[in-house]
């Protein structure tokens, strides 16, 4: 086995700087880009995002990256989202709606199967899924599928998954703050586990609040 072929392998960690180009896609948020290995969301990998309330998953965190990877492949799969991914909003965030596959199913086995198919197919630039609780073997399957297919694999889970074992490349915990989220890295292959990365919601910068008088009416 030559050195070159070793360097080609994705499962050999070579330190932060040596990551291959195309291994990560910039998140669009400077703090995250700085602290995530490879400088962004890992491609060819599964990322687990744990949130306080699954119904309010912070999609905005992914928008720049989803928009960036979208042109590369025919589809982007959204599997069992907790609410309606609202097309006008997605479109305003530069997502191409005709590339989105919305997969609605409540059966957990079907969700995992579709997620694996989507990741493995090499036809999806990204796969977002809301699988409920993920078993360790499921994270392994999805991680392997992502490594094979090369897309962006994202699973949203709630905080009950904080202490479970996971085979995902990246696992992070988002806590809501009043103008964005505070991100803790729980598992991060190839980088230190940073805590309290504050990411601002893009629309929070121009806010001036007021309490409405109409509120009483």
């Amino acid at each position: 086995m030559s050195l070159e072929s070793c360097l080609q392998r994705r499962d050999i960690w070579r330190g932060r700087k040596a990551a291959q180009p195309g291994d990560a896609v910039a998140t669009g948020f400077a703090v995250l880009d700085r602290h995530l290995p490879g400088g962004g969301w890992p491609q060819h990998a599964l990322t687990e995002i744990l949130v306080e309330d699954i119904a309010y998953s912070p999609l905005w965190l992914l928008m720049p990256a989803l928009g960036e990877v979208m042109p590369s492949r025919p589809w982007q799969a959204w599997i069992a989202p907790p609410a309606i991914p609202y097309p006008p909003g997605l479109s305003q965030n530069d997502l191409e709606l005709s590339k989105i596959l919305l997969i609605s199913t409540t059966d957990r086995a079907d969700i995992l199967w579709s997620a694996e198919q989507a990741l493995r197919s090499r036809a999806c630039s990204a796969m977002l899924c809301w699988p409920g609780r993920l078993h360790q073997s499921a994270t392994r399957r999805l991680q392997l599928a992502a490594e094979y297919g090369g897309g962006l694999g994202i699973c949203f889970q709630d905080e009950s998954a904080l202490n479970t074992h996971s085979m995902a490349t990246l696992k992070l915990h988002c806590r809501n703050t009043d103008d964005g989220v505070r991100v803790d890295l729980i598992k991060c292959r190839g980088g230190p586990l940073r805590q309290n990365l504050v990411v601002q919601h893009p629309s929070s910068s121009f806010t001036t609040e007021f309490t409405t008088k109409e509120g009483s009416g």
Partner: protein
Amino acid sequence: MVRAHQNPGSCPASTPPDRRKPNLEKVPSAALPDALQPTLLDHLWLAISFPFLPLEALGQVKRKQPMAVYTQQGQVYKVVMPNPAATKSGIQAGMTLTEAQTLNPTLHAIPRDVSAENAHLQHLAMLAGDWTSAVSIAEDSLLLDIAGSARLFGGITHLLEQIRSWTASVALAPCISVMPTPAGAVLCARAGKSLCITAKEHIRSAIRELPARALVTDAKRQRSLNRFGINTLGDLLRLPRDGLARRLGPDLVQQLDKLLGQHPDPQTAITPPPVFLQRIVFDTGVANTAQLAPFMEALLEKLQTHLTRYHILAEQLEWHLINESSLSYRIPVYLTQPHRDTPRLMKLSWLAFEKLKTKDFITHLVLRVTRFAPLLPSSRDIFSVLPKTADRGTSLVERLQNRLGRHAVQGLCIQSDHRPEKAWNRCNAGDTGALPYGAQRPLWLLETPRTVRVSQGQLVLGGQQLLLQRQRERICSGWWDNQPVRRDYYHARTAALQAWVFRDLDSGNWYLHGIF
């Protein structure tokens, strides 16, 4: 004398004398059309007439009791077709029903069913597809272009024998006639004249003895012909064309030209709907669906042959499994892109089968395909890599749809409506809708807006205070379809999220509708 003068090119060998059932085997083979040059045979028409079609269509041919099919003409009922038993008691077509019933009081009269006749003829036309692909229906006869198939069946003589034995099995006293022109073939078959003529120059002599009324059907012209003293087609052909056109109309001259092959007479062949239906019956029953795989493959291979034959692609497959208690399962297999690739169809079918759980023994496996797409000729660009990835995309959608069902895998699109809940829709994967417009919209929309509590002049959502931002968007729309909205939308935030809330202007209540 007239005839001798008229007949320079008659072909006695190929025009047997007026026997109802000529025996072609007795004709010297050298004179048979096989000896003709292939260039002459670009079209050769075989017409089959079914004199008892009205009876056959009603399935009443074999009855021994006297019967007649009648139809209403104005105020009277007229006999269209008596059966042989009725004919014996003197009943003829064209009699009124009353007359016929006077002749034989036991006559069983049935009304004519033209649609059944058409359906029966269609059915016969399908069967006739065994001999040639160009089968057309000429009113009450079938017309087969056998020029292309004569050789395949070992010459016209053999082909005729086979067709004769087939028609004898499906119809009563059919008449078969072969002619180089479609009109000629139909005319002879209808007149009950069984001929086999392959050269155009022999047509004239073959048809000259037929009564002129076989060609001229309307009563007024028949009367005129009677007045001219013209009884046979031979007499008619002898008349000068211009005079004939002036006296009886130019279309009659054209009809004669078509008869003799001097005027083109294109026929439209019937193309049968390429429905594919094949079944496998298991004598002992199959308990395990996994054991079905080889049989499915066999059926799919048959399907592929079928698709190749018709130059089409399958768009949707349907498997039917019938179990012992004759319950049937229908398993549709959806294809995003029509194709006819057996291994791929097998994979997709198998995915659809995986969901099926049955404990019963399966006795029938049926594959039915009714939706097809034409095969478009395509050329491949040797440098192009794109089609491969596109193909990968559709196969993913196919796989997902086959396991989860069609409705579960969809695309998203924008609709032009101001009401936020109607400004989007699900659509077929890959379809595009309207373009986005106007003000900023959230990324999540709640299917049903969530109520926001008001306490002490503050909006409270999930225990957290909701702060509104200054911009307000008023949406008043939808009066036309009885789902009107009158709302003021605000961007708002709690300690946890950026929200899109609205106040219903009618009720004054606050709701959470979306999350940014």
